[in-house]
């Protein structure tokens, strides 16, 4: 069974937000609901001034704090390692939102539950890639099987030394970032 993850090359992100709206459409979200964000950070003074755009989404942690605290077991991990929320058992208590150290969960006000990035499981199981990966004009995201050392994503992570966000938290995220 594959263990899916994404490598994100920050040096290529232009902050165009294509991923955000592609995701919103794929998941039929409202305009103010989103599963991914782009934060930006600037530093330095000219001529060494620089600004980077940082795409953020659920990290699909292997040791997911959101899953541990869920009182109804609505948050679970699929056999492919994708962390999902079962809308039928989620009671909208928001414990998971508090527990997520990356703050990547949102409230679905229409259904009164908590929602998040699903890594487009319905596309992935059909052999496709998540909507945010497919649409990106600069190919910032690489999607694939982290357990296959020959997959493009594994090769990229090994070659560039990409790191997950806050590895010190022990959450073991499956989204990796190349910073420079």
């Amino acid at each position, binding site marked *: 069974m594959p263990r899916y993850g994404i490598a994100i090359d920050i040096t290529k992100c*232009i902050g*165009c937000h*294509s991923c955000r709206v592609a995701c919103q459409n794929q998941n039929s979200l409202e305009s103010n609901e989103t599963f991914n964000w782009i934060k930006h950070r600037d530093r330095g003074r000219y001529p060494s001034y620089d*600004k980077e755009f940082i795409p953020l989404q659920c990290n699909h942690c292997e040791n997911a704090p959101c899953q541990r605290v869920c*009182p109804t077991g609505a948050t679970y991990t699929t056999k492919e390692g994708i962390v999902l929320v079962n809308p039928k058992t989620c009671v909208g208590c928001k414990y998971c939102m508090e527990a997520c150290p990356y703050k990547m969960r949102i409230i679905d006000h229409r259904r009164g539950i908590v929602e998040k990035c699903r890594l487009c499981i319905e596309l992935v199981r059909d052999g496709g890639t998540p909507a945010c990966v497919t649409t990106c004009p*600069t190919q910032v995201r690489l999607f694939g099987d982290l357990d296959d050392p020959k997959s493009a994503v594994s090769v990229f992570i090994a070659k560039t030394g990409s790191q997950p966000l806050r590895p010190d938290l022990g959450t073991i995220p499956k989204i990796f970032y190349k910073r420079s």
Partner: protein
Amino acid sequence: MNRSGISRRKFIIGSAVGGASLVASNYLNFDSWANSKNDSNDLKITPTLCDGCGNWCAIKVYTRGDRIWKAEGIPIAGNNHGRICAKGHALLHEVYNKDRIRSPLKRTGPNKFQPISWEQAYREIGEKVHEIIGKHGPQSLFLLQYPEGNASLCSRFMNALGSPNVFSHASTCFLPRNIGWWITTGSAKPEHDLEHTRFAVFLGRNIAAGLRLRQLSDLSKAKDRGARFVAIDPRFSELASYTHQWVQIRPGTDLALMLALGNTLIEENLYQKDYIDKYTVGFDELSQKFKDYTPDWAEQKTGVPKAVIRKLARDLAEYAPQSFVHRGYHGALGTQYKNSFQLVRAVACVNGLLGNFNQRGGMFDPPKVKLGKLDSQKFPKLPELEGVMVDGSGDVDRYPITPVGLGLTHSIPELAIAGKLKAGFVYHNNPLRTCPNPARVIEGYRKLDLLVSFDYVLSETASLAHYILPESYYLERDDVVHTNHCYDSHQVAIRQAVIKPLYDTKPMVVILIELAKSLGTGDYFNFTLDEYNRAALAPLGVTLERLKMEGVIDLGGKWEPGPPHFKTPSGKLEFVSSTLKDLNLPSAPEWEDPLVTPDESDRHSFRLIHGKQAHHTHAKTINQEYLKEISVLNDMTRVWIHPDKAKALGIKDGDCMTISNNVGKGRARALLTQGIHRDCVFLPSSYGVYSKKLHTAFGYGISYNDFLPTYFEPVLGHCMSNEIIVRVEKTPA
């Protein structure tokens, strides 16, 4: 307290155990729900072309029942290679926007409209047009469009009435860029072999916001291969965050930098000698002209250190011909400065010195597909129109090299005030927001005896029109065959209806055909859209049915490097232009000052520059709520100002600033950033909607047009949109 007998702690532990069984029992159900999304029986996929900007990216639109769901890019399409931007995704929702016009409208008073039938609208417009032609002649009619695939039909519509006055948005967007390249290389819009380039310079061109998906995709591949890129811009553009180096330049002085690059290439013998001998004219005269434009001189003008300029020239030369200076769009090389035309010529000449035309990793004239024409036996050919446009485009004594059919869009209000234009048709354009000096534009358009707008919402311009004939949204209409997105191959594509029209609207081509009948020019429109499309496809060996199935078809004939061919009078790349010499204009590029400069002694004085953001295309996308949400979330209507300059004015990050000059006044919040030149403030364009009928966008942000005087650049007549000096101050509490 604990009435149920289970403490909260126990509940959590218990549910964690119980959770496992819950997951197990619901697991299959949820997965089948997830999987069912793609399998549902009423899912339909229709290939068509996006309408988020002028790229017309090829997309596949998914519908569930009669409701649009999502879109994916078509991988073979030359312009987008299977990618879609935020605008492309978000505009799918726009078809359901409550602000849409639902039937033909007649204006009965200020912002008051009465729904009428198509027949009544056609009849009344026909009568009025006849009356105006009778009184003032057909020269008093104009059509303004943002050219769509059906642009040639719009021209046919006007020419049949006897008017050559067909305008586009060129004079507020790209005019000098096209003319400069056309004069120098014979190709108005050369493309770049970005994928194979090794070093590229982007001068004021921000393909990461004035989005070109194919170019970005190629750029990404080139970056993986180790290519290097430099962005030269007064501000740290989105592209600058992608390139390896950002060179900050004083706004309006890009020309000095380009001249100095040329000077260095020549003085240091870094140019491609064989190529220049074989394929160019005027090298000696150019060398003579460039002698004075040393990097030391350019450092004074641009603020860019001479060492940086020399390094740029040497890097360009090292990788030549697999290097180039980007051909530009609006920024710097577009309609922004008085010296923009000279700048485009200089950029084209620097590329000429690099010998990169039609070379791998360089530039090329994109392949063009020749579409078929209507059979002139069955469908009468139009008589040739004589004369020049009313704005002086094509007139030897006024704007001799500004092409008829592009025209000067911002001259329309002036011509209306002067009584030379009496009636107008506006299609896919919103001059009241996108032209300089809105008060003057409103005054001009108000003077018209008849204004007909083909719009799908009550934009500023539509709100002023006497009649509004609503076009079906691009997702609801069949349209003409397109060849716009070929890029490096021969491709043909088509826009077609994804869903049935929600309201009483029609495709523009149908409106033109029907309206022509009531205007007495129906003989020239005795065809249907299908007949027109079949005639267009006839020489290509592609059936309309197949094209509608596939959306875009590659006809082969991919561009390959080889000896260059230039469609200029000399057949060579013209460092020195015979066309310009004949017109007594500078025949080789030379320095020209920008029209205005900020007052150095006044700390309130700034140049106002503007630029696109990646999620908006001016009036086209501004009323879209998914896109507005991006602006709101990231606070993107703020005006950029350098922290040191802001400090001198007592302005802190997020403070409200008052921006004013003798044209207009407005307020915006400050974004303090090191990523902007001290001489200028940067205002993101597209915002500042003032039509109350656009409920999402109304009153959000301001527009640079509110501060831009009505200028006409002397040679081409463009609007010089960055020649604005404003006074910036902290808004008193």
